[in-house]
């Protein structure tokens, strides 16, 4: 039993599931809230959405650093093309984990609403208020989100395929309480 059965490290597992949980909370919240008519409830949901997004962005930094300084367990045996897709998906997921909250942050600034983390910590506006830029960034944020959504679907499908069809430990070694 060599490195094939090796589990992901504790911090990698924690970051994976925490960020997964946050993304899966922010995504439907974003879809729901933007259809609402203006109300105090809408203002609150927007704030929660932004706080979740900024948390993802904040967690992304140590997660990336950890990933760059630690070698993950070796991939289990699989056809080369599947391995390439899995790797590519992982890279794009990392990219979007950064770009999606960043585009939301920029969009909020362009729309004239500074992000104030948890209602107390003002996050600087990287760009000024601009209606055209705000509309453009809204599109960008939306498209990036759907790409992220698609990639997560692919990622989950791959994990389930390994778990159910191949019956290997690909998924188990990322589970928080597995062995």
């Amino acid at each position, binding site marked *: 039993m060599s490195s094939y059965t090796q589990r992901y490290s504790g911090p990698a597992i924690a970051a994976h599931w925490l960020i997964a949980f946050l993304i899966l909370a922010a995504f439907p919240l974003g879809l729901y809230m933007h259809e609402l008519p*203006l*109300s*105090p*409830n809408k*203002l*609150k949901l*927007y*704030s929660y959405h932004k706080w979740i997004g900024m948390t993802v962005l904040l967690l992304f930094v140590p997660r990336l650093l950890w990933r760059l300084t630690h070698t993950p367990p070796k991939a289990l045996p699989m056809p080369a093309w599947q391995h390439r897709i899995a790797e590519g998906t992982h890279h794009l997921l990392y990219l979007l984990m950064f770009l999606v909250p960043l585009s939301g942050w920029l969009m909020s600034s362009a*729309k*004239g*609403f*500074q*992000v*104030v983390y*948890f*209602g*107390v910590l003002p996050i600087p506006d990287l760009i000024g208020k601009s209606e055209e830029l705000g509309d453009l960034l809204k599109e960008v944020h939306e498209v990036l989100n759907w790409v992220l959504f698609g990639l997560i679907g692919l990622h989950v499908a791959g994990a389930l395929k390994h778990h159910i069809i191949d019956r290997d430990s690909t998924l188990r070694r990322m589970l928080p309480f597995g062995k």
Partner: protein
Amino acid sequence: MKIRHIALSAAALLLAGAAQSVEFKQVDTARSSLAFSSKQMGVPVPGSFKKFTTQIAFDPAKPTAASTTLEIDLASIDAGSKDANDEVVGKQWFNVKAFPTARFVSSGVKALGGNRYEALGKMTIKGQTRDIVAPFTFKQDGANGVFDGGFVLKRMDFNIGEGPWADVSAVANEIEIKFHVVAAPAAAAKK
């Protein structure tokens, strides 16, 4: 043309020298502004009123004799976004159909020392009248008088934001108002 220019300069110099007895009355609307800042979920959101008229009579030598009235066209609000602009003219906020203008009428001005003053008066918005104290500074910029001031208005005192909007945890009760008024001396305007 040249002579006129010199005459004007001389007049300006005279005015500057005689600043103690000049009454500033002619408000320059284009250079004056009325801005506010609300807090939504802790986020400061700036806004302004594009249309307002104000009358001022202020002589720095006799500040206690000063008076001012302000009338704000509430429909001219820019609350930071199109959604917000559509919302705040509605019934739960300003209800501009029934109450198109807000009005401030001063009852007195107190000198606080230096260039600092305080305007006291009554503010009427949406049928509600409340006493307001608005500290401001006065300075002369060339021949003009420049008034800068602000105060905190509690929106719930005027029922601005009723129904679900009465929730001050979403939109804070305190609205910061800032005004900048440029006024020319009455004498210069008459000449």
